Every structure is written in C-alpha cells, then in structure tokens.
C-alpha cells in the first residue's frame, strides 16, 4: 500500500468517472453535509422523552428529518467504504475534512446559525489545510 490508488483493473471509460475514488469522496462530502443539517433539524424537532435516556438523543428518532439524515448518512457511508478501499485513510480522511467548511456554511445559509469573524478564519484554515492534503494526494497520484 505505498501508492494512493489502485492502478490495476480499471473499469470501462463510461463508468470510470463514477468509480473514481475522488469523485466518490466528493459525493460523500456533500451527502455528509446534507446529513448533518438534516440531523440537526431532526434533533431539535423530536418528541420529548424521559430525562434518563434523553442524553442519548433518541427523541430525535420521531422526526422524519432524522430519518432523512440517517438515509443520507448511509449513502455517504457506502461511498466512504469505496473510498477506503482505494485510498489511504490518512489521505482520504484529510480530504473529507472539507465538510468542516461545508457544514458551517450550510448551518449559516440554511439553519440561520451565525458565524463570527473568528469562525470564518477557522473555516479558512480548514480549507487551506484540505488543499495541502489534496496536493499530497496529487503527488501520490503522479508516482509510477
């Protein structure tokens, strides 16, 4: 496992883009973002449950938003397993951190949460870090 991707048994051109682990990684990032926003919506609109189990968040299971969140999470999980099969974990996990940019932006745009100046700076750092990790990915791709 010294190279980042598996160069053997490449699929036909027509499906190659879909089976590209980096394409699947991008899909996974968008699905995770959708999932987090849906789960947040579900978690705050669930039914009240006894305090003894409320900390587990099971009350959220009564909300359809939670189930939509679970569905998108499962889809993202399928693409993530595919990514794990083909990319190093240290590479894939670095890249998937782009969700740290997408989720706060989504929470700001869709849930009306506020983002302070300091938080924007943090988001910029995460973005720069992800780009650096992506550069190491490009380098690994370029290796014979």
């Amino acid at each position, binding site marked *: *496992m010294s190279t980042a991707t*598996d160069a053997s048994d490449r699929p036909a051109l027509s499906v190659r883009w879909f089976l590209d682990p980096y394409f699947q990684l991008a899909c996974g990032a968008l699905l995770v973002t959708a999932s*987090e*926003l849906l*789960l*947040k919506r579900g*978690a*705050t609109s*669930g039914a009240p449950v006894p305090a003894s189990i*409320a*900390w*587990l*968040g*099971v*009350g*959220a299971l009564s909300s359809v938003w*939670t189930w939509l969140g679970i569905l998108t*999470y499962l889809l993202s999980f399928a693409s*993530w*397993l595919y990514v*794990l*099969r083909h990319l*190093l*974990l*240290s*590479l894939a*996990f*670095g890249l998937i*951190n782009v969700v*740290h940019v997408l*989720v*706060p932006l989504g*929470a*700001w745009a869709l*849930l009306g*949460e506020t*983002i*302070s*100046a*300091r*938080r924007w*700076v*943090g*988001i*910029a*750092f*995460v*973005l*720069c*870090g*992800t*780009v*650096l*990790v*992506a*550069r*190491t990915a490009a*380098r690994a791709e370029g290796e014979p």
Partner: protein
Amino acid sequence: MTAAAVLLALLCQLFLVTGQLTLKRGMNATRLLPPPKARVIGSLAGGVGLLAVWFFLWLGLLRDWELSRLFPFEGLNPALVVLGAGLLLKERVSPIGWIGIAMISLGVALVSGS
C-alpha cells in the same frame, strides 16, 4: 459549553476515530487474495459498532448545542486518525500532508473557541 459536554464530545470523537481505523483495516483486507472473510466481516462489523456508539452520542449532543459549535470537536479527528493510521495501519504521511492536517486542526480549534 459545560465541562461535561466537552468531555462527552471528546469521548464521542474517540469512538469515531477507532471506528474509522477499524473500517479501514477491514477494507484493506478486501484487497488481499484471497480476502480473509473473518477479518473483513469482523472489522467492518466492529467499525460499524464503534460508529453507532459515536452516532447516538452525537445525536444527543446535537439536541443541546448548535451544530456550528459542536462540529469543531471533529477537528481533533484528522490528527488522531493520521496518527492511528501511521501506528496501526503503517500508512506514511508527507511533511506537507502533516502541515495540512495541522492547519485543519488549528482551523477547527479557532472555530470551536469562537
């Protein structure tokens, strides 16, 4: 956030990191010829189990705190996952990769402190 919530959020991330390492161990095994079925299934089931614990702890935290405040705790994960991948899965990370990981963690710390 209260100290208990911070501790719970940290514990939550440990489940996620060990879950990811276990999943990757399972998917690595699928590339062996022939794939060792017990190791693939065991690792995937173990990974899913650890992630399930993470999931319900996370849902509980989401109930009480803003998503944009909670999510930063996941910023510990890049460093922990890369460390774990290096120690347990023998993956190597380039210096630029480490700088990238450090920036991600720093960014996450900035977001969580605001």
